[in-house]
């Protein structure tokens, strides 16, 4: 009996989500596609990024920011690298080890940036794999908007770290608008300071295979994280978003809202929303949702919310996921008022994404994303599209 009691006391609750973390790629075996974290990803289309493809290629990284925000290229060993991130899969660990130069942006304490800092990542050759690493540090009580703008043609694995200081505000938009032959696997980790606020919007429109994994940890109580996403998959495209919110401090808040649309044969989207509320994270307020609009036959949606709650003292913890067609009633309502079917569909889809686009803090970017969605919709309105 006493033996049993000891066993129970020692075995505290341990989360199984994202349990493995290491800087050494050797610690992660080559995925076979049967692992939970890889089973939705078409490994044969990753061009060996998950195995041992050499990172001999290069993508260009250019930063346009306020002059008060210093941008430096650092080498491995710099103490600012690896604060927000310990790689959690083989691709991330390989990219971490291979990225020669790390681009570091530092927003000084208390500084309020007057314009968005735009980090443009441009690829021009998808035949050779490339690795990248970007760190964005936001000092205490500072505020900034950062845009990660990925475009061109590349086979690219990267890690992005956001270190948000106490009381700071950071808003990030990560736009994946690659050419159709690109493969992009991205890990974007944030460490949110005490009473700090972090928002992250992933927008995935272009690219053959895009897998983005945003994650959030809290360095102290009172942090707030808003993770949003918007994606539109066409025929043959694989767009995957894997969210992870690790509530390890008390009284923090997180919201995850992802919306996507799919059209065309073999358009595939994956959304994984993992939330852990650890025993010490009392007073957590967390909610995640994913909505998918299936616009044609032949597409595939995978949507998996996972919630692991290890304390009874939570304010709120919930999740929701829906995947379906446009609602007949919505279309009927509009058509009964003289709006033709094609226009009615467009209106409903615009409204569906409007909520998220309205939250994007950079007006030019919001316009660009709206225009890109209009192009997608025009493409999907041909014969064969189902209401």
């Amino acid at each position, binding site marked *: 009996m006493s033996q049993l009691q000891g066993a129970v006391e020692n075995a505290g609750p341990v989360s199984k989500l994202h349990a493995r973390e290491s800087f050494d790629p050797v610690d992660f075996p080559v995925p076979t*596609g049967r692992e939970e974290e890889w*089973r939705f990803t*078409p490994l044969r289309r990753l061009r060996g990024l998950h195995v041992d493809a050499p990172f001999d290629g290069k993508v260009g990284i250019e930063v346009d920011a306020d002059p008060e925000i210093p941008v430096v290229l650092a080498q491995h060993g710099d103490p600012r690298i690896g604060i927000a991130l310990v790689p959690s899969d083989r691709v991330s660990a390989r990219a971490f080890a291979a990225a020669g130069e790390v681009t570091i942006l530092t927003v000084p304490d208390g500084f309020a940036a007057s314009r968005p800092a735009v980090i443009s990542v441009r690829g021009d050759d998808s035949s050779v794999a490339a690795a990248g690493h970007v760190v964005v540090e936001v000092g205490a009580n500072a505020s900034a908007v950062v845009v990660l703008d990925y475009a061109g043609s590349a086979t690219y694995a990267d890690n992005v770290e956001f270190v948000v200081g106490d009381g700071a505000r950071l808003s990030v938009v990560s736009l994946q608008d690659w050419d159709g032959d690109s493969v992009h696997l991205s890990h974007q980790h944030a460490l949110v300071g005490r009473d700090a606020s972090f928002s992250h919007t992933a927008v995935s429109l272009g690219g053959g295979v895009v897998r983005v994994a945003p994650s959030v940890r809290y360095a102290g109580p009172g942090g707030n994280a808003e993770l949003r996403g918007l994606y539109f998959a066409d025929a043959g495209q694989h767009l995957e978003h894997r969210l992870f919110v690790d509530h390890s401090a008390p009284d923090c808040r997180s919201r995850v809202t992802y919306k996507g649309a799919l059209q065309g044969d073999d358009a595939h989207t994956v959304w994984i929303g993992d939330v852990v509320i650890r025993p010490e994270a009392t007073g957590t307020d967390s909610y995640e949702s994913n909505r998918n609009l299936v616009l044609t036959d*032949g597409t595939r949606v995978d949507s998996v919310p996972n919630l692991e709650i290890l304390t009874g003292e939570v304010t709120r913890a919930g999740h929701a996921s829906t995947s379906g067609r446009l609602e007949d009633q919505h279309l009927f309502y509009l058509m009964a008022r003289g709006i033709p079917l094609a226009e009615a569909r467009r209106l409903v889809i615009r409204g569906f994404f409007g909520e998220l686009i309205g939250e994007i803090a950079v007006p030019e970017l919001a316009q660009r994303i709206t225009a890109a969605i209009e192009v997608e919709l025009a493409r999907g309105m041909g014969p064969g599209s189902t209401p």
Partner: protein
Amino acid sequence: MTEFVRACALAEVPEQGTLGVELNGVQLVIIRSEGEVYALAEFCTHEDVSLVDGEVYDHTVECWLHGSCFDLRSGKPTGPPASRPIATYQVRVESGDVYVAL
């Protein structure tokens, strides 16, 4: 006229079994069932699992992971969760060798 390419020797394919081959960059599974030889695309249309490890019976190959079944003659799905047909290829057996039309 489609061109037939040699895939393997007939003896390499087990009776009521499978053999994975790559032909001009296309990954195929060669299957013998009830004395007939078939060639299908290697990967299940449900979750991209290799059918080389599948089970063969009664003109059917069954995916080992989730149990999707395909008719070997037509490629049509005969059991869920797969809902889309798998590609099938014409096969000719000549003097102990299997030829596939790509």
